[in-house]
């Protein structure tokens, strides 16, 4: 669902924020469990945000889901 909304909004140039979920360990930014890939980060060495601390709401263009 989020993926579809993200694609649609980006195609139409509509600003879009999405609220993500990921399985969590600590919920406070310590365990680095809840990773979500940063958009445009290199494929060989992908970089991550952490949903519990950096999110849960992200600009759709900031993340890759």
């Amino acid at each position, binding site marked *: 669902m989020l993926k579809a909304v993200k694609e649609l909004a980006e195609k139409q140039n509509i600003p879009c924020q999405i609220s993500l979920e990921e399985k969590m*360990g600590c919920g406070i930014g310590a*365990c680095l469990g809840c990773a979500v*890939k940063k958009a445009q980060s290199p494929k060989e060495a992908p*970089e991550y945000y952490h949903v519990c601390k950096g999110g849960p709401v992200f600009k759709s263009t900031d993340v890759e889901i």
Partner: protein
Amino acid sequence: MNTKINLAGIEMKNPVTVASGTFGYGREYSQFFDLSKLGAIITKGTSLKPKNGNKPPRVCETASGMLNSIGLQNPGVEYFAQNDLPFLRKYDTKIIVNACGNTIEEYVELCKILDKLDIDGVELNLSCPNVKQGCMAFGNTYEGVKTVTQAVRKVLNKPLLVKLTPNVTNIVEIAKAVEDAGADGVSLINTLLGMKIDIQKKAPVLANITGGLSGPAIKPVAVRMVYQVAKEVKIPILGMGGIISGEDAIEFMLAGATAISIGAGNFIDPQTSIKTIQGIENYMQEQKIEDINEIIGIV
């Protein structure tokens, strides 16, 4: 009542530490309690260069435990030295850095840097099941453990603990390699390699397919390994695996651990470590134990 212990040359106000990878570099938990109450803080596994970690999902819940495959995401030793160490040093507790690498050269380079930093000791991670090279590859055999530990010992004058994987046939033999190589102590245990399958998707839950099992589910395995190793090696043991209370901690100490770490327990309640310290003191009072050192390894 005395709760002070000496772990491998590190004087601690109590035997309770927090396990590597479950406590970051302390900042997040400092919102919940005064970090100075801890015997020591063991940092997230730190490498020479920054690491981004594995693809998500990285964690999942299992019966009385969890699986993780974080992949040692960390900012690298330089960033740690500049940003996290000064923060941690504000607290009156011991700082032990969990060190990881892919090659012997990397371990040695890293430990040369760590030796110059204002830290109290190093816990060499020869046991992470979630990275392709290194770590557990060395931790699997007597020779591997001995070679890396010896190489690091040559460049590291600070107290050196070596953290072992339980995913081996004979833990006592591996622990002897640590002792023979001249390390000051041994940390037992890292996570047990496990796996979970999503039966709806008919696929592994973790992107890495396998992950390390931790939490109360692994406690009996950890207690058994601490007990077996304590009977055969002389260097002190930092025990961990499923500890969430003072009673659990006491069990490890009776089995032979000089100090203990709380790992996944921090996720259940950020104050688990503090409650564990309290629990140990309660037990000492009930049992009329004057000095916590009296009970180490008496079973």
